[in-house]
């Protein structure tokens, strides 16, 4: 039943809650990489060894609860159809890399989808924990408590000098990647991102598109995360990231104000044109859809568009991805068919809002 929920609902339950600065920060995430001390890392381990890890998780943690996280469900990649895998990737519950491990890959997912533990990815264990809005410290505290809960039953690969040992030297130490998803339309519109990105890189942080490494910034959504995992404490890493994010929030707000003051009617026109496209188009590509969705969301945040819920960007960005569209249609679709479906789905969704 739960697998059905993971796959049918585009918006995870935790995303429906409002978080601090959620007009700009969509979500905060903490990822912790962990490994078993006495099993070779997945790239080199035998199928048998990895199978045992999977079995261990199924015995010790499946259907368990931890604090607010009710009933963990163990989803095995081998049980999933290609479209279902794609849906879980689009929801960020599993990584594309894990989806390829059809023999021994799995994810332990909490009912509210706030916690997802990827098993036998590049490392044996990758804990992911999400919060809505800018709540990095809270996410870190929770992730750390959850990590302790797992450690009660697992001997982690840990070394006094190098910290948590990971397959890739880019993750060693804390094993932590803290990241935030930000909607920055005004910084893009005023062409400030080109200056902002190199400055952020200089501070040891990375800027990426919505679907991680190498992906494009669809819908003006950017993911910002720490690069360095060794030599700094988790708290310091989160603190540094947070201070940069807060500066970006301020810059984005100023840029929004500036555009409104200087070319209010033009901006309003752009936003309502996009709204028109979404409300009436019959064929729409995902690139155009995400651009228009970003405009509409900006319109909502600026108070220009009312009666449309703020979560529309988050929801439709996921819902209009190829995997979800096909899951909705209950069959495989060609790219052209998808563009028609996408337009249909967006029109329906916007009609729902008005009623």
């Amino acid at each position: 039943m739960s697998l059905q929920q993971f796959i049918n609902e585009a918006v995870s339950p935790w995303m429906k809650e409002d978080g601090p600065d959620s007009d700009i920060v969509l979500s905060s995430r903490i990822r912790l990489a962990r490994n078993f001390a006495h099993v070779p890392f997945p790239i080199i381990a035998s199928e048998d060894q990895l199978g045992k890890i999977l079995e261990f998780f199924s015995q010790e943690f499946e259907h368990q609860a931890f604090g607010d996280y009710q009933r963990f469900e163990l989803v095995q990649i081998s049980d999933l159809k290609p479209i279902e895998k794609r849906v879980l990737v689009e929801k960020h519950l599993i990584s594309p890399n894990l989806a390829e491990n059809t023999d021994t890959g799995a994810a332990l997912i909490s009912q509210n989808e706030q916690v997802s533990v990827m098993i036998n990815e590049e490392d044996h264990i990758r804990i992911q924990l999400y919060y809505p809005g800018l709540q990095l410290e809270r996410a870190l505290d929770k992730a750390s408590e959850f990590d302790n809960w797992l450690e009660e039953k697992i001997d982690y690969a840990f070394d006094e000098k190098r910290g948590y040992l990971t397959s890739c030297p880019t993750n060693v130490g804390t094993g932590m990647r803290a990241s935030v998803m930000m909607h920055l339309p005004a910084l893009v519109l005023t062409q400030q991102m080109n200056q902002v990105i190199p400055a952020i890189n200089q501070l040891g942080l990375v800027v990426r598109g919505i679907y991680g490494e190498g992906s494009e910034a669809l819908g003006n959504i950017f993911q910002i995360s720490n690069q360095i995992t060794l030599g700094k404490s988790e708290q310091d890493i989160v603190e540094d990231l947070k201070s940069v994010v807060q500066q970006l929030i301020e810059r984005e707000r100023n840029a929004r104000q500036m555009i409104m003051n200087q070319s209010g009617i033009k901006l309003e026109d752009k936003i309502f044109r996009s709204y028109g496209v979404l409300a009436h188009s019959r064929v729409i590509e995902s690139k155009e859809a995400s651009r228009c969705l970003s405009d509409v969301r900006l319109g909502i945040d600026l108070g220009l568009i009312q009666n449309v819920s703020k979560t529309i960007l988050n929801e439709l960005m996921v819902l209009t991805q190829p995997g979800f569209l096909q899951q909705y249609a209950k069959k495989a679709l060609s790219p052209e068919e998808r563009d028609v479906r996408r337009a249909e789905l967006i029109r329906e969704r916007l009609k729902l809002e008005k009623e």
Partner: protein
Amino acid sequence: MECQECHQRPATVHFTQVINGNKTEVHLCEPCAQEKGYMMDQYGGDFSIGNLLSGLFNFESSPLTSGHSTTFTPNSGLKCEKCGMTYDEFKRTGKFGCAHCYQTFDAQIDPILRRVHSGNTRHNGKIPERMGGNLHIQRELERYRGELQDLIQREEFEKAAKIRDKIRSLENELNRKKDGEE
């Protein structure tokens, strides 16, 4: 835009390199790019993080250190006894095979970690609750010892005495645990 090498053909290959935040852009035509080695497919086209990393590891054969490596190559043949990963393989894939590899290649990895983690080679974050054992006490001791130095310098001897007592009791605890282990 014309090619910045030959200044004849139009530039069609654009290469941006960011090293520690310093951005350099190169604009070349295809023949010049081939010549300069900027064309990716020449190397098989696979541009994964592993390959990028293994690029970083090849510093050993750079001109700076080549003086040593010609006469003395300590790393080739190095092999992890637990998982069988060789140093050459690690260099090629950029991934460790198991936790023990960190000890096997300990002498080699400091420069790599320094490059990837802005000069850091030692962990300074969380210690596992259960497995961390005495490390928690050792970290606390380090913190108190630093505090004690500060207090003595500021001549706050009453507070210093309290900290000193705390240090003593922690040291006792540590010694007791160590005895218990033996």
